[in-house]
């Protein structure tokens, strides 16, 4: 049995179709300046042809290639999503089938925008409990299916995409590189973010969620660093859920992480819910701005309301 896990590969996928703020201005009464000043988003990607499973598979394939492992090495697939339309099969089984992973544990997790950190934690726990040896963890969303394209207050916010990580158990004597999770929820605020069957479009109490985010999350993110035994001054990058730039900046201001790069992929990807953390992380690693071994603080938050975060070492 292993004492913990580490990330050995990252990957992401975004659809080719770019939807700019100018494009949106032709659909609803809005404009580029208004959107950028309110939420910091310049453009987002929209899946015209791709399904949730297509995007998840593409991101997972890239993460697997980056890890140097093959499908035969994987015995667990965990997918974070809240936008899979089919109830059965789950996205994890579809991804496993397409990648030729033969008999993995395969399940989906839905905690909306905090999904990836929850999924990563359950995969880490499974490996530490000896229920698996190596896992692919995916965050994927196709929010365009749940966007009301006539509602200018929400349609400017969301995008589609996927990000993935491969994790495996550390050898005897090695230090785990996926830190303990800090997770939780605020059930009494269940109605603050919704995609309900009776009205299958994203609806949210923007100001309520914004206040919750900027007043309560920074200490929880710091707790994740504390649990991992990493000093805040040593955090190389802070990858928060890419909800909107002002929430990210609001949390970052109270974080006390003076040397951290603050991931801001929301600018070019919009809010991609459970996909946003692994998508921003994979792109940050690809850009070369963070190096192998760097401690990165991940922190997801959103519908539920839920939150989860942990420190990982960049592969």
């Amino acid at each position: 049995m292993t004492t913990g896990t580490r990330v050995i590969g990252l990957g992401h996928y975004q659809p080719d179709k770019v939807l700019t703020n100018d494009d949106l201005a032709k659909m609803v009464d809005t404009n580029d300046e208004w959107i950028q000043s309110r939420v910091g988003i310049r453009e987002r990607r929209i899946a015209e042809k791709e399904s949730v499973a297509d995007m998840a598979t593409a991101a997972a394939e890239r993460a697997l290639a980056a890890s140097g492992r093959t499908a035969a090495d994987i015995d667990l697939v965990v997918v974070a999503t809240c936008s899979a339309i089919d109830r059965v099969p789950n996205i994890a089984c579809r991804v496993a089938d397409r990648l030729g992973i033969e008999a993995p544990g395969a399940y989906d997790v839905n905690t909306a925008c905090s999904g990836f950190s929850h999924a990563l934690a359950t995969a880490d726990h499974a490996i530490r409990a000896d229920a698996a040896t190596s896992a692919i963890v995916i965050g994927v969303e196709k929010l365009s299916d749940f966007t009301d394209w006539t509602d200018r207050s929400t349609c400017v916010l969301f995008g589609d995409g996927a990000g993935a990580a491969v994790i495996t158990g550390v050898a005897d004597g090695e230090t785990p590189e996926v830190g303990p999770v800090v997770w939780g929820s605020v059930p009494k605020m269940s109605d603050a973010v919704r995609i309900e069957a009776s009205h299958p479009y994203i609806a949210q109490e923007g100001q309520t969620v914004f206040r919750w985010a900027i007043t309560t999350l920074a200490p929880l993110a710091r707790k994740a660093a504390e649990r991992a035994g990493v000093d805040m001054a040593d955090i190389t990058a802070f990858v928060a859920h890419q909800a909107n730039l002002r929430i990210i900046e609001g949390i970052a201001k109270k974080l006390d992480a003076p040397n951290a790069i603050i991931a801001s992929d929301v600018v070019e990807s919009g809010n991609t819910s459970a996909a946003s953390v692994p998508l921003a992380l994979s792109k940050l690693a690809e850009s070369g701005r963070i190096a192998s071994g760097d401690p990165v603080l991940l922190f997801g938050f959103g519908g539920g309301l839920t939150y989860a975060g942990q420190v990982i070492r960049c592969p």
Partner: protein
Amino acid sequence: MSTVKNTREEIVEGLSEILEEVAGVDPKEATEDKSFTEELDVDSLSMVEVVVAAEERFGVKIPDDDVQSLKTVGDAVSYIEKAQG
């Protein structure tokens, strides 16, 4: 909640400092008769930041439901004055 009770002038001054920091409002503009959204161009998220900063500074609670009713700087000053008791 707070043991401090500020004068109306102190609250206006405090709010104008907060408005300058959070939303870049010129302190000379932040007078009691001005409306947050229309005249001072404070958007809904900035309004939340103003409220959060005002809660910390003046030791009061301003729930989301009440924020909607604060149209002008003067409304906010009166609310804070009353909440400080």
